[in-house]
């Protein structure tokens, strides 16, 4: 009985043992080799990670597409809790993600949000949670972090950059900024076992500098023809 207790404590990832240099961390490859190096292997497993994009639309979700695909390929569910917009199915299918492995959950209260998040983590699903207008409380995040520590899965929380002012119990905090189109600047604001402040520039696609001035947009000729056709018919 006592031996069992010790064994279960030793298998926990957050038990510090004097002789080991670094915490034995398990990770999931992010799909970007530079990012893997920054995160010392990939997204932490059995931990809650917080992503803080400076504004929506800069590529924060594409960062996670390989991870979502990895989970979906393993027949594990991916729960999107309170996403800000509707996921666009054709793009997800193009990324090779099975749509029946995605589940969108809408909560009606912070209590429901927390319950659904915890339940998803405990049921072996990949959680992507978006904080609502009111950021979750420290105690709630700690609850999720503990649930994640006991599970064998990664969990992600998207928060507004203003959340950086408050401390957070999550294992990883990553601030995302866009330098220009398709170029992300990732800044580690907190990572277990290392000092924060490391930065990485990530190219998500080709950074095209092409801009089309509004006045040079092609005219809608097709519509012009059709209105003309209507006119001739009328006359």
């Amino acid at each position, binding site marked *: 009985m006592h031996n069992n207790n010790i064994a279960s404590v030793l298998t926990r990832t957050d038990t510090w043992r004097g002789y080991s240099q670094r915490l034995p961390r398990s990770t999931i490859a992010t799909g970007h080799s530079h990012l893997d190096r920054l995160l010392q292997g990939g997204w932490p497993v059995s931990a809650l990670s917080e992503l803080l994009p400076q504004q929506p639309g800069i590529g*924060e979700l594409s960062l996670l597409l390989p991870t979502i695909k990895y989970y979906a390929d393993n*027949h594990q569910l991916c729960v999107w809790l309170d996403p800000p*917009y509707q996921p666009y199915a054709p793009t997800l299918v193009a990324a090779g993600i099975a*749509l029946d492995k995605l*589940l969108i959950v809408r909560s009606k209260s912070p209590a429901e949000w927390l319950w659904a998040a915890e*339940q998803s983590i405990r049921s072996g699903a990949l959680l992507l949670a978006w904080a609502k207008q009111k950021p979750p409380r420290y105690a709630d995040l700690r609850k999720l972090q503990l649930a994640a520590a006991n599970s064998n899965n990664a969990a992600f929380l998207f928060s507004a950059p203003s959340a950086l002012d408050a401390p957070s119990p999550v294992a990883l905090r990553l601030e995302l900024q866009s330098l220009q189109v398709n170029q992300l600047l990732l800044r580690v604001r907190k990572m277990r076992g290392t000092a924060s402040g490391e930065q990485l520039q990530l190219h998500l696609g080709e950074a095209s500098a092409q801009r089309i001035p509004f006045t040079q*947009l092609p005219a809608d000729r097709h519509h012009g023809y059709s209105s003309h056709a209507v006119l001739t018919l009328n006359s």
Partner: protein
Amino acid sequence: MLRSINKSHKTNKSDKSSKAQDIWLYLHFPLLSLETLLPQVPADQAHKPIATVSLEKNIQRVLCCNTQAEAWGVESGLSVSTALALCPELLVLPRKIEQEQQHLQQLALLAYSFSPVVILDNDTGLWLEISGCDKLFKGYNALLQALEKRLVYEAITAVNGIGQNPLAAKLLCQPSFQTQLPKPTEIQHLLMTTDLSRLETSRKQQQSFEQLGLKSLGDLLALSRSALSRRFDAELMNRIAQLNNEKPFTAPRFQPGDSFHDLVQNPQGIFNKESLLFPMKTLLQRLCQYLVARQCHCREIEWHFEPLIGESQQMQIQLSGSQNNWSTLLMLSRLQLDRLELPRSVEQIILHADQFIEAPMAVFNLDLFGDQQAAQQSCELIDSLNARLGIEALSQPVLNQDYLPELASTLATPGKPIKTAANKPLTAPQPLWLLTEPAPVQMRNQQLYWRQPLTIISGPERLCGNWWQAEQQRDYYLACDNRGARYWLFRESANQRWFVHGLFS
């Protein structure tokens, strides 16, 4: 699994020959009418002397009573007035035959997990044919012990008899539960010395037994068949033939019903949700017993909570997968119960289930990759989210064969089979986020503006739904703001208005 083993043994045996010895077990429940009603007796009165009564020839007579009542001298067959004179505190319950029959059905279901051949006896008893069922339980004695333990757990008083045919087993019914299988010679000896008065025949026939000086069954069977047939009717001859294993016993076998319907009554009423959980657990355990007996899983269960007065309330629990595990079903029922407004007091709880699927065999397979487990976990997660948040809170993206983005990507309730239509892939990049409603874009100084100034990067890509509807002709452009976020804009052909339709994320 359990059933299939039993069945295969049974078929093997009958294939070999019918000469293999049958072992019939008769289970008699002497206190069935009392024990059916006991759960409805308030807890503070359960230790009082209690008797059930039924109407016989216009007189209410005691049918059976508990040990407390027996201590006062109450016994079956007494009229109610005599019983009350003996024991003034006696709690008299009228017999409820319908509930009793339902209880017997439940017990048959229980027995069905011990033997594939179960036959109901109207006379508060069950027959089980247990030959060939020993391997599963590692011996007949272990089987009998397991059965006794199970019946004690169900709080049922049972006695049994064992014989080579159903009639013999019933005749040999002992006053206590035997857990040792007697040897065939012992059975034969016991049968021959059985008193003839135990044979259920008319009084006239019993009298003629006496006149002939026949005391035991052995005396009767010793007489030649022709002599017997001259004196006794065909019915008795038929029985004798059955006792001698010369004629088969032709009674319909018990089969679990097509749907499950069970209820728990509580005349005092249940006033809070916590106290509902215990009877709900009992019902779910019975359901699971039924599911195991039928080798199937349920896809949906339905609860009815009925008050004494007023409208009943119901609750449906739909499963994305299938279940035969009562604790999961109880957990889901509990989550959904939290959202339900119940009548002030619940008198009757009904559980109904009629949607079943065959139990997936994969459960028994050695699953090397854990896919099955992951799928099971996802189903359980969907079910519990559904129970707590409601189905309207859950959705899954679906791809449709359509070109307009809002039609190509829609949301559906989970659990429905998703048909993923392969669409012609577009050449231009497509966004990850779609706005539920396209948001109109303003024009400021020849500059598009939505939350902040936007600049077009590339385009256009024409998407049209129905060509005859001009407003469904759209030119899609990729735009960005000066902070690096990318947007999906479109211009309507009809009126040249601009909208934001999505975000690249």
